[in-house]
């Protein structure tokens, strides 16, 4: 295997650059700060190159559907996707770059409108998932159900009118046990991420860089 394709090179670079980023967080060294700032610019440049790969991938996936698919609706939707993707790219490159009125109009009438529309669907999925999660099947789920009802009533305007204690209890649940649980998960995850970094820096972990998953 050529040295450029070996796993050791990206792992070595990850370790060196990762340690530099750690050091920049703790130490006030102007040279190091300048190097790390430059590296952050490099990340943006590399991400821009990766975006080209993404565009190629989308063209391959939807191009094949347009060429081979028998279902006329799927062919049409894929063709529409490709048309809009390239139209947005072309309009975005018109001067002034990403600020041309036609680009802004297309963005604000499609992307900016569709994003919150899709987000709003979440309300229905939360309702159906909550229905299943809040079924009292044993003691634990019963506690879960009662806590859920208290928090829902605390957040709903009617809660305080039904009983003033609901506000007190809901506020306590939101500020004490829930925050304690959240912080425990955050601390645990932060230490887990640090261990992953140490394993990566010491060359023990490379599973994200190759097939198989383990090791």
């Amino acid at each position: 295997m050529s040295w450029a394709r070996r796993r050791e090179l990206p792992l070595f670079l990850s370790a060196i650059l990762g340690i530099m980023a750690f050091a920049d967080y703790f130490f006030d060294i102007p040279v190091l700060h300048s190097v790390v700032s430059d590296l952050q610019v490099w990340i943006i440049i590399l991400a821009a190159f990766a975006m080209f790969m993404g565009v190629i991938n989308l063209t391959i996936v939807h191009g094949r559907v347009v060429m081979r698919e028998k279902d006329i609706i799927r062919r049409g939707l894929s063709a529409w996707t490709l048309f809009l993707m390239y139209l947005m790219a072309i309009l975005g490159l018109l001067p002034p770059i990403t600020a041309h009125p036609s680009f802004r109009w297309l963005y604000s009438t499609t992307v900016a409108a569709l994003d919150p529309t899709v987000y709003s669907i979440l309300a229905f999925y939360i309702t159906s998932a909550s229905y299943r999660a809040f079924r009292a099947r044993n003691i634990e789920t019963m506690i879960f159900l009662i806590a859920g009802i208290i928090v829902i009533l605390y957040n709903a305007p009617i809660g305080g009118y039904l009983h003033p204690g609901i506000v007190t209890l809901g506020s306590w649940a939101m500020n004490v046990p829930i925050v304690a649980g959240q912080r425990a998960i955050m601390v645990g995850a932060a230490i887990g991420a640090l261990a992953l970094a140490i394993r990566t820096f010491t060359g023990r972990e490379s599973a994200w860089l190759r097939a198989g998953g383990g090791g």
Partner: protein
Amino acid sequence: MFVPGRISQFVIFLVLCFFMLSALWLSKRKPIFKLRKIAPLDAIEEVVGRCAEMGRPLLMVPGIEGITAQTLAGLTVVNYATSLAARYDVEPIMLVAVQDVYPLALENVRLAFQAEGKADKFRPEMVRFVYSQFPMATTAMGIINRQRVAGTVMVGGFYAETLMILENAYRAGAVQVGGTANYHNIPFFVAVCDYALIGEEIFAASAYLSKDPEQIGTIVGEDFGRLFLALLAFIGAILATLGATYGKWFINLLSI
């Protein structure tokens, strides 16, 4: 030399590193530590097996973050699932929402098929790039309902799109393994998935799957690190209960 206010953080960082590196060194000398069973990671084979039995695809998402610790943990798990999919002739569909992750994911899927001796079966469209959160979610919903995926593996950094994908897969009858360290999305995984990885469990995936004693050592080191931080929190709680006068020196110490 130090950035003001970060000396105490650096000391805590060194203590945590000490725990992890010592446990790693101890494990290297003699493998003495064992990991408890992590059911969601064991279940991945079941998920892929079900896809193979039903002849339907496997949907995988390594989160929607860039190259972060959660994404690397997610890639570890989906790499494992991809290898199994290649072995059992299951069609894997991986959705990637961030361009930085896409080349890594594409190369990993290609290598997985190559490692299983099935390089001819690899197709670039197995990894699909769909930029940003909600377009990726709607693409996933479309794939789930059109192709009736029989299993999903979703591990990494997730946000509002989680439940949209999971609920659609639930309705399609898919077996689901998922997990994240984002505390605001853990309830969604626990409520809908058949097997959920909670918080730091996602970072233990590589050690668990490889059974490598040195990697397991760092997991043990993590636990000692957690005990150390719990001790600090306990001291803080006692001093806060006693009053501001008693606790001030402790707050000052941690603010250096």
